[in-house]
């Protein structure tokens, strides 16, 4: 199978269309399953009561915001370095979903902060660096939208996305580097998680659902971007002829 064939937007378009239901349907199933486990199987927390159930959407959305930023920067860099149009289009397609998840993590974190910390917002390291991540997404989207020349817009967006990558480890390690109100990581790569197995299961199921949702939505948006950009390219070629 010649994979390079799919680096062309025209060839990737039908493949993306076929892939969408394979991600969208399992995503919906996993969301229902994760919410069931989170609300009916996971016990009430002995310290936070039922307020902790916000974790099932807060943590996956925060992770998605960070992962999608890295992915967006990766595709933007590939698009810039190799002049690969599809990669730049992919970065544009990811940006809105990444911004949505980052905004969601801030909103749900704020709603969790009020009953546990007594305030919706504090200017602590984790919250502020996550807010900066949202501004980076907004900056990327705005920058791309403000430049008419697509290749220049992609290059400018790539520079911003790559520079902004520095913020992701800052968000992740902020709870270790500074004294913050935000709690430390509940799940570690090395070592045992600090939460009960049913709570962890619900969180991981919803995380998987969020990944599948993101892939499905990004593919739909990517197809839309391909249609819009290729249409313009065809129109421009006709106009020049």
């Amino acid at each position, binding site marked *: 199978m010649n994979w390079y064939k799919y680096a062309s937007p025209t060839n990737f378009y039908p493949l993306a269309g076929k892939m969408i239901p394979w991600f969208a349907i399992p995503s919906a199933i996993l969301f229902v399953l994760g919410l069931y486990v989170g609300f009916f199987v996971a016990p009430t927390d002995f310290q936070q009561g039922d307020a902790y159930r916000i974790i099932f959407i807060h943590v996956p959305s925060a992770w998605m915001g960070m992962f999608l930023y890295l992915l967006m920067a990766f595709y933007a860099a590939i698009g810039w370095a190799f002049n690969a149009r599809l990669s730049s289009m992919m970065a544009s397609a990811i940006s809105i979903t990444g911004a949505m998840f980052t905004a969601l993590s801030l*909103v749900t974190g704020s709603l969790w902060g009020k009953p546990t910390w007594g305030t919706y917002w504090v200017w602590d390291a984790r919250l502020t660096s996550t807010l900066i991540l949202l501004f980076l997404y907004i900056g990327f989207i705005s920058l791309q939208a403000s430049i008419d020349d697509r290749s220049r817009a992609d290059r400018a967006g790539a520079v911003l996305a790559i520079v902004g990558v520095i913020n992701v480890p800052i968000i992740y390690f902020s709870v270790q580097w500074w004294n913050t109100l935000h709690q430390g990581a509940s799940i570690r790569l090395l070592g045992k998680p600090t939460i009960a197995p049913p709570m962890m299961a619900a969180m991981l199921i919803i995380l998987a659902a969020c990944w599948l949702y993101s892939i499905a939505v990004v593919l739909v948006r990517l197809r839309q971007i391909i249609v819009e950009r290729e249409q313009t390219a065809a129109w421009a070629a006709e106009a020049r002829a």
Partner: protein
Amino acid sequence: MGGYAFYVWGSYLATLILMGGEVVVLLRRRKLSDQQKRSTSVVQGKVITNETTS
């Protein structure tokens, strides 16, 4: 929800609004683009017809 209903349901409502909103905006964008494409092809069709008949 032990007195935390506003915060818990508020979070899931925000999730529904943001994720659902993203899907709705995306589908509307596609619909608009399809309409634009159809109207453009109709206009182009008229131009071609005029050119061939003139």
